[in-house]
C-alpha cells in the first residue's frame, strides 16, 4: 500500500511539473532549481500544489529547498508530512 501511495504521489508531482514547463521528460532526481529546469518563482507554485493536493501544511521548519528540489525529494517530503 505504501509503495502504491508513493508512486501516486510521485506521478502527481511529476505531472504537475511537466504540465508547467517545457521539457519532454524529467528524471525523479533532477534538481529542478540548480539545473534551471524551473526558475525560483516556481517554488511557490510547487509548494502551493503540494499543500492543496496532499492536504499538508508546509511549516517554517520545512522551509528548506532540499525538500522541494526534485520529484524524489518532494515525494519524500509529502510522505513524511502525511506520516506525522
Amino acid at each position, binding site marked *: 500500500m505504501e509503495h502504491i501511495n508513493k508512486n501516486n504521489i510521485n506521478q502527481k508531482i511529476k505531472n*504537475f511539473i*511537466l*504540465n*508547467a*514547463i*517545457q521539457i*519532454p521528460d524529467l528524471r525523479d532526481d533532477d534538481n529542478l*532549481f540548480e539545473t534551471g529546469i524551473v526558475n*525560483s*518563482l516556481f*517554488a*511557490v*507554485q*510547487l*509548494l*502551493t*500544489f503540494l*499543500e*492543496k493536493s496532499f492536504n499538508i501544511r508546509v511549516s*517554517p521548519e520545512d*522551509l*528548506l*529547498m532540499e525538500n522541494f528540489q526534485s520529484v524524489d525529494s518532494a515525494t519524500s517530503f509529502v510522505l513524511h508530512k502525511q506520516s506525522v
Partner: protein
Amino acid sequence: MISFLSEIQLELYNSFKGFVKENIKPFACEWDKSAEVPYKTIKKMGKAGYFGSFLPKEFGGQEWDIVTYGLLNEAVGNGMAALADLLTIQAMVSIILLKWGTETQKSEWLEQLASGKIIGGFALTEPDTGSDIQSIETEFIDDGNCFRLNGSKKWISYGQIADLFVVFGKINGKPLACILPRKSEGLEIIPINNMMGYRTAKLARLNFGDIRIPPENIIGKPGTALSLIAPVGLQYGRISTACAALGLLRACFEESISYASERKVSGLPLGDKEIIRSLLASMGTDLNAASLLCYSACRAEDEHLPEAFEKVLMAKYFSSKAAVKAASNAVQIKGAAGCNESDPVARYYRDAKIFEIIEGTSQIHESILGKLFLDKTHKEELLSA
C-alpha cells in the same frame, strides 16, 4: 460589479465604499498636496479591521477571504491609491509572518499589525538592484551569537513611519530574511520626498550599519528567502496593487462619465461627441476586463490553486496598464480642468504610473508571463506530437 460576489462580500464592499466616501475621498487632494495622511485616519482604518483583513481572528484579524481583501483594496484605491499602498505593505509583512514566522514572532507582531498599532515595511529593493531581486547585496554575517546586518534598501514604502521591517539579504550567498524593529541600533532612515505620485507613501532609504539581529528575529532558513518567503509577500502585494489599480480605474470612469454627462459644449453635453464616447467605451471595457481578471485571481488565491500565481501576475499587469490609460483619458476628457491639482484626475494621472512600477514593473511581468505562456504552448505541442 461582478456577479459572483456573495451577499456578505457585497455587503462588506458597500461598507468599504461608505468608509472611503466619508473618511478618505473628500480629503485625498489635500493630503496629497501636503504629502501627509493624518494618523487618525490610519487609526480609523485599523479600527475598522482593514489591516487585518485576511488574518485569523486569533491574531486580531477579520478572516475575510481574498476576494473581500481585493474589494477592500479596490474601494480604498478608488479613494486614494497611496493609502491603498499602506494596505499593500501591511499585508505583505503580515502574510510573511503568518506563513513563515515562528509562533513567537506571530504572537509578538501580528495582532499589532492587524490593529494598525504598528506599521510594517517591506525592505527588499536596493539602490543598485531595482526589480532584479536575486542580485541584492545586503549581507548577514553570523558572529556565533547573533547575526550582523549591513547594506542599504531604497524606495521603501512607508519606511519613514514603519515600526517594523521585514528585511531581505544574503548570508554566505544564500538569501535570508529577518525582522528588524525600527528602534534597532544602527538603523538609519532617510526620507525620500518629492515623488511624482503616491506622495503620501512616506518612502525612505534604509541604511544598515552593523545591526545586531538576534537569531529569534530570523524568518525561515537560509536559501529560501527569495524563492519562498518574498514571493508569498509579493503575491499579496500584487493582489493589493492590482485591485487598487482597478479602484483608480473605476474612479477615472466615474469622474469621466459624470463630467461627460454634465459638461455642456455649445449647449450640448460633452458625451454627445463621438470622440468622448470612444474614450468612455475603451475605459468602461477595460474596467470590466480588469475587474474579471482581479477577482478571478483573488478566487484562485482563495482556492489555493497553483495557477493563482499566473492569474495574479496578469491581473496586476493588466489593471496597472489600464489604470494609466484611463487616467490619461480622464485628464483628456476634462481638458485644462483635469490638469489642475485641485481636480482628482490630476492625482489619478500621477498615481496611476506608480502601479506599473511597484511590486514588479510591467516589463518584469511581461518577461515572466511571456515565458509562462511560451512554456505552456511548447508543452501542448509536445503532447500533441
